[in-house]
Structures are given as C-alpha cells and as structure tokens.
C-alpha cells in the first residue's frame, strides 16, 4: 500500500515543478534620477518611470501610437482634443483611475518645477467632462497633441495629496519629496525598492489591465547601475546580468560570439551632426579674424564633402551607424529617403571649392565635442579632424564631458560643435523648433531664414495634414540647402542580452519590460 503512494508522490514532484520566480537582472550606465514622473525629462529616468506610471498615449515597439490609459482620442473642436479613458484601471494602492487624476497630472506637469512643461505648452485648459472623459484645450489647433503626451505619466491625485507631492520635485526647497523614492502608478510593475545609484527593484503588478494583451512572465526586475563599461560587459558575460542596455561598441562582437548571449540592433531616433557658426562676423576660435569662413556656403559644402562617412562607419563605428543626409532619422514624420541622400565624398572637389571661396591655404578652427554622450563621440570627432586636415582646414579638437560641452552650445560659445538630436514626439517640427528656427534655443549656428521661420510657425497650427506635410517638406529643403549643420550619421543602438530573454528592441532606446519574456 505504501509503495504505490510513495511512487505517486515522487512522480508528482517530477511532473509538477515548483515555479521559481523569474527575475530579470539588468544594468546600464546611468540610473534614473528620480521616480517623480514629472520632474526630470531624461532618458534613463523616463525608462524607469514608464514601467510604473503610464501615459494616456503609448508607443509600441515600432513606435506607433497605441492606446494607453486613453482608449480613443479625437478633436471635437479645432482647439479641443477629447480623450476617452480606460475604465476599470486601478493604481497600485487600489485607488481607481479617473478623469480627476488626468486633470491633476497634466496640471502638475505644467507647473514651474516640471521638466515636461515644454511638451504641453500649447495646452491652456484641462477639463474632466465625466469620470472617464477628459478634454485638453489648446491655444490654437494642435494636430500633434497626442504625440506630445507619450512621456507624461498619470498620477493619483489622492495619493499625491496624502504625501504632499502635488508639485514635482523642487530643487529650490532642497528637500526630498516622497515621490522621489516612492511611486504609485497604474503600470505593469510596482516599485518595491529604490536605492538611488545602488539598486532599484520592481515586482509584477498582477492586476495590471494590460496583462491579457501582454502576458509577460517577469516577476521581478532588479536594476543595478554599472557606470564602468568593462565591468558591465564582464557581468553580462559571466551570467550575473541578463540584459545590458548600452554595451560598448567594441565589445559587441565578443558578446555576439559568446554562447548564450545575443545582440539586437536598430537605428535610433537620434542623428549625430556638426553645427557651424554661420552667423558670426568673424570666428572666435580661428586664425581668420577678419572674416567668417563658415558663412560662405562653398566652405560649408567643402567641409561636408571632405568627410568620408563610410570610413567612419567602418572604422570608428565598426558598422554600427547609418550615414545620414539630413539631421533627423527614419521614423520621424517628415523624413524621406530622398532627403537623406548625402553629397558625395569628394576631397578634391572640396579643395577646389575652398580655393574658389578664397581659402587656398585653408584656415584654423576649433571643434567642440562631447566625450561621454554619444556612441564613440570623441573618436568620430578625431576622424573628422583628420579628414578636414586633408583639405587644408586645421582643426583643434576640444573634447569634454557633457556637463561642460552642452552649456557651450546653449551659451553660444562655440563655432563648430558636435550635437546629437533625438525626437520624442517623432515629428519634424521638434527639430525645426529647436535647431533651425532663428531663435531656436539649441540653434547655435546663427542660421536664420525668414521663410523657414514662417513655415515653422504655420506647421504648429495647420490641421490639414496634406498642407502641413508640404510645409514640412519645404522647410527641409531650405534646411538641407543651407548646410548650417553637416549631417554625420544616425546612431545605431544595440542591446545585449541572454538568449533566454526575449525583449523587442525599440528605436527610442527605452525598454518596456511588459514586452519581455524569459524562457523557462
């Protein structure tokens, strides 16, 4: 009698395995700065927050807009967008998600201390029509408002009031607010532990509304920031990590050749380019004190054609880049392949252009470059310096850390600089607004064109999509013609991970872990 029972119970232990927890351990260079969803508009911060908090409109892995906490949206009047909210959604503490929370969240995102204000500057009023309908009123017709909402997470107004975080993290009062290390969202993961710069742990939200559509099996996510590149790769190779967001380019081959690991790559919505000070009377950093060589279009074209971007792609980027002809990438509305065609690499032609322009012996200039922001940024600049040297332009390279480099651009203290531009709303207007408009805040080229300024203004409010596209196309033609920026390439991002992990790569370099699966 005992033996069959013993056999059966033994058999059961074999047949019914104990379900171990699926833990996803991952690392990247920089930790999120805060868990306050409206405080810091920055890559790693948004990635972390958007696992826990959700926006009204989301993007799927091809970056197409899909319903998030809003199930449908339309313009009911030229300046009024109406959003229908998803019903039956609960925050992690059990509170219901309603229109009141949406109104609160947008108002919070518009406050002085929010870094997300710029996305919704056009919104003048937010109204709750009923518990599950919200209207956003804009100051003029805004055809791309839904695109501008994909980074703004929804908070529970009740929770915020209870913990005195109705304003986003404020640097002025220099006090840590509750929302910095605690979160209460509607998202697929719940924040369990937050030790800034040490460890962040999230657990699965078993009541998430999206589990049917996205049946992920990640029970726990443990994130460790590892700023040292070699250590990060070593940890992946030794099996201590399952996923590294930003493996260094020179280790990609090694990772690909390691059994049990794989690399996924995709072109990022970020283009790297060089800006030229075309507006100044004379260059500060050059030996040409009487004139500004950059103001001559022939000089700019010569510099463009002196750069052998294919060589840079092969040697510097080891194949991980896509040569570009304009300063924005595929995936951004308004981009076309025709626009992305580059001028031919032609050092001889470049030299004659320089002679024609009156610089047979070339000239000197200083190139400002970051050394810790873009993939192989300093190495690209070094290559460019070499190539320009061949046509007679002596370039001094000044490569610095990003906290020193970017203020130079913002304070207009550079004549020749490298910059990379990502486009969260995925619309060309974002590029024109910051980089080409004569008073664009990141436009240190001094370039200004009346017609282009007009077009930028007009496309902000044009609701007829065909008309708007025509405006965008015309603006790009003017922009491309000017060569105020010399396009280099679209960045390619690569994610390295264990073979057991399935996680679709996204061109915005921001993983969504509810799309991940760990093989059993």
């Amino acid at each position, binding site marked *: 009698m005992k033996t069959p029972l013993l056999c059966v119970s033994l058999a059961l232990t074999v047949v019914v395995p104990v379900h171990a927890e699926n833990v996803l351990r991952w690392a990247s260079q920089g930790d999120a*700065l*805060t868990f306050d969803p409206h405080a*810091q*508009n*920055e*890559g790693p911060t948004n990635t972390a927050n958007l696992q826990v908090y959700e926006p009204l409109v989301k993007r799927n892995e091809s970056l197409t807009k899909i319903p998030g906490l809003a199930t449908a949206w339309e313009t009911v009047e030229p300046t009024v967008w109406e959003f229908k909210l998803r019903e039956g959604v609960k925050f992690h503490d059990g509170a219901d998600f309603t229109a009141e929370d949406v109104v609160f969240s947008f108002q919070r995102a518009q406050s*002085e201390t929010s*870094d997300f204000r*710029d996305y919704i500057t056009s919104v003048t009023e937010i109204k709750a029509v009923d518990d599950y309908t919200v209207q956003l009123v804009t100051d003029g017709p805004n055809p791309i408002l839904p695109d501008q909402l994909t980074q703004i997470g929804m908070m529970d107004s009740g929770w915020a009031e209870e913990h005195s975080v109705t304003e986003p*993290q*404020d*640097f*002025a009062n*220099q*006090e*840590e*607010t509750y929302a*910095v290390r605690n979160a209460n969202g509607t998202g697929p993961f719940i924040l369990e532990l937050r*030790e*800034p*710069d*040490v*460890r962040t742990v999230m657990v699965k939200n078993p009541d998430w509304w999206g589990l049917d559509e996205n049946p992920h099996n990640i029970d726990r996510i443990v994130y*460790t920031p*590892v*700023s*040292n590149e*070699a*250590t990060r790769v*070593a*940890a992946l*190779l*030794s*099996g*201590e990590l399952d996923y590294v967001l930003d493996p260094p380019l020179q280790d990609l081959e090694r990772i690909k050749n390691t059994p049990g690991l794989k690399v996924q790559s995709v072109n990022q919505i970020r283009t790297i380019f060089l800006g030229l000070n075309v507006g100044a009377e004379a260059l500060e950093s050059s030996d040409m004190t009487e004139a500004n060589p950059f103001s001559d279009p022939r000089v700019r074209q010569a510099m463009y054609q002196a750069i052998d971007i294919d060589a840079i792609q092969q040697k510097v980027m080891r194949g991980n880049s896509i040569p570009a002809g304009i300063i924005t990438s595929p995936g951004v509305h308004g981009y076309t392949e025709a626009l992305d065609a580059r001028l031919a690499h032609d050092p001889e032609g470049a030299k004659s252009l320089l002679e024609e322009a009156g610089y047979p012996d070339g000239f000197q200039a200083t190139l400002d470059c970051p050394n*810790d922001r873009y993939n192989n940024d300093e190495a690209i600049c070094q290559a460019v310096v070499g190539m320009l040297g061949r046509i007679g332009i002596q370039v001094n390279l000044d490569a610095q*850390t*990003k*906290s*020193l480099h*970017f*203020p130079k651009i*913002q*304070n207009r203290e550079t004549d020749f600089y490298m910059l990379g531009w*990502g486009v969260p709303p995925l619309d060309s207007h974002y590029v024109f607004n*910051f980089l080409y408009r004569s008073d664009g*805040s*990141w436009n240190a080229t001094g370039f200004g064109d009346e017609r282009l300024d007009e077009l930028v203004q007009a496309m902000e409010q044009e609701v007829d999509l065909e008309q708007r596209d025509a405006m965008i196309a015309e603006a790009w033609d003017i922009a491309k013609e000017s060569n105020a920026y010399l396009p280099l390439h679209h960045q390619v991002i690569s994610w390295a991970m264990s073979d057991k992990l399935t996680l679709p790569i996204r061109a915005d370099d921001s993983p969504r872990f509810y799309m991940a699966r760990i093989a059993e």
Partner: protein
Amino acid sequence: MLLYVLRRILATIPVMGVVALFVFLLLHLSPGDPAAVIAGDYATPADIARIRAQLGLDRPLYIQFFSWLGRVLTGDLGTSIFSDLPVSYLIGQRLEPTIALSVLTMLITVVVAVPLGVVAAWKAGTWLDRSIMILAVCGFSIPVFVLAYGMVFVFSMELQWLPVQGYKPINEGLIPFLRSLTLPSIALSAFLIALVTRITRASLLEILDEDYIRTARAKGITERKVLMLHALRNAAVPIVTILGIGVAFLLGGVVVTESVFNIPGVGRLVVDAILKRDYPIIQGLILAFSGVYILINLLIDLTYTFLDPRIRL
C-alpha cells in the same frame, strides 16, 4: 597626554579650514555647470538660469562659501543637487561598503605583509628573501585596476568562483558578503602588502643588527622568540607609521576599486558626483575624507606611546 590629544585636535581645525577653502574654490572655479546637467538634453537657457537661481549658484562666490561653511559647522553638509537627498544621509548610506572594504584590506595587508616581511628579514639574502622582494616589486608596479580586471577575468569569468561586481551587505549573509569583497580587497591590498613587507623587512634588518639582539641570542633565547618578542616590537613604530600613510592610499584606491567592482561605497559616490558636478556631495565627501585621514594619523600617533615607552607626548 590628554593635553597633547586636545592640542592635536585643535590643530586640525585650521587644517580642515584650508581644505574646505581649497575644495570649494577648486570646484566653483573650474568650468562645468551642474544646472545644465540637471536641466537635461532638451533644456532651454531659461530653464538652466532658473535652476541656477534655485540652487543659489548665481550668488557671489564668497557668499556661497560662507553660507556653506556655516551650515557645515552646524552639521548640515547640504543636499545633493541631483537627488535632493541630504549629503550626510548619502554618506551614511554608503559608508558600510567602504568601511568593510577598507577594514578587510587592512586586515589582509597586516596578516600577509608582516609575516612576509619577518621571513624576508630572517632569511635575508636567500632565495626566499629575493622572491618575496620580487613579489613586493610586482605589488608596487601593477596598478590596482589592472590587477582587478585580471582577477575578474580569471576568477569571475573563466572559473566563475567569485562575482564580477556588486556588494552584499553583511545582513544578507556572511559568505555572500565575503565573496563580494574578496577580489576588491585583494586588488586593493596588493600595493599595501608590497609597501608593508618592505618596511617590515628593512626595519627588522636594522634592528637585528643591534647589540641587544646579540645579547638575547647570546643568552640562548630561540631565534623565533628573538624575532617575535624582541625585534618585532621594536620594529613596530615604522610599520605602524606606514600603515597610517597607507590609509591615504586606501582612500584613493577605494575610489578606483569601487568603480571597477561597482561597490556602492563613498568612493563611487565621489566619482559619480564629480562627473555630474554635484558640488555639495564633492565638498562634503572631501571634507569627510580629510577628517578621517587626520583622525587616523592622530590615533596612530597615540599608539606610539604604547609601542615605545620612550616616546612621551
């Protein structure tokens, strides 16, 4: 003796004052704008100006300095620009890993180096002495991070005996704690072992030539007892001095080691803060490091009275 200690402690105040001024000026006069880093990629100059004003970075330098100094004297080290957490809290949180690493490193150093130095002195001139000295030279010459990565490659990646990175606090178990600190403390102690071995050997050799040692041997005391009881105790003063200086090396080495092994200690905290220009953390930490160094050297000076009764303070 008490008077001596008090005098020494008072003497640290002007030293710390100079350190504070130096650190403050170095940071604020060097280029780099934390407000720009906080503001992020898509910020406008107006955003950055607003953040600068909020942080008080637009006030004249001397006002910023005295305001900071005043707060330090009341125990308020300020708030991190980036995380809004009080600096003293951050330091407190990150202290455990650094102290654990430092203590373990010092333990390994003393346990390995002193016996090695004694053996080298005892068998001076033989192949044993030569090999130990060769090891010492290697320990001096190999940079910490080279040794660190070499060990990671062999022990973590190939043999998979020890973790590549990370730190397990002691409350998660003694074995994981020790495992996570093994490679870092070995990497860090190599230089110190080399140093202490050589000093121990040199110091002992000098003493072994002294008359009283010859007397001890003549009395028939075993060589072992001569070494341990008589020679070593007299050689202790230089060894302890070197250990005090070794603390300075440790403070610097901890920075590199924590970055390589991703240990969340104050070393890594200061590196991250420097890269982001998080002034309050950098200032607070450098003050703290200087304070620790001064304190440890004071303690070492005090131990001299126990080691050598001839030294009166």
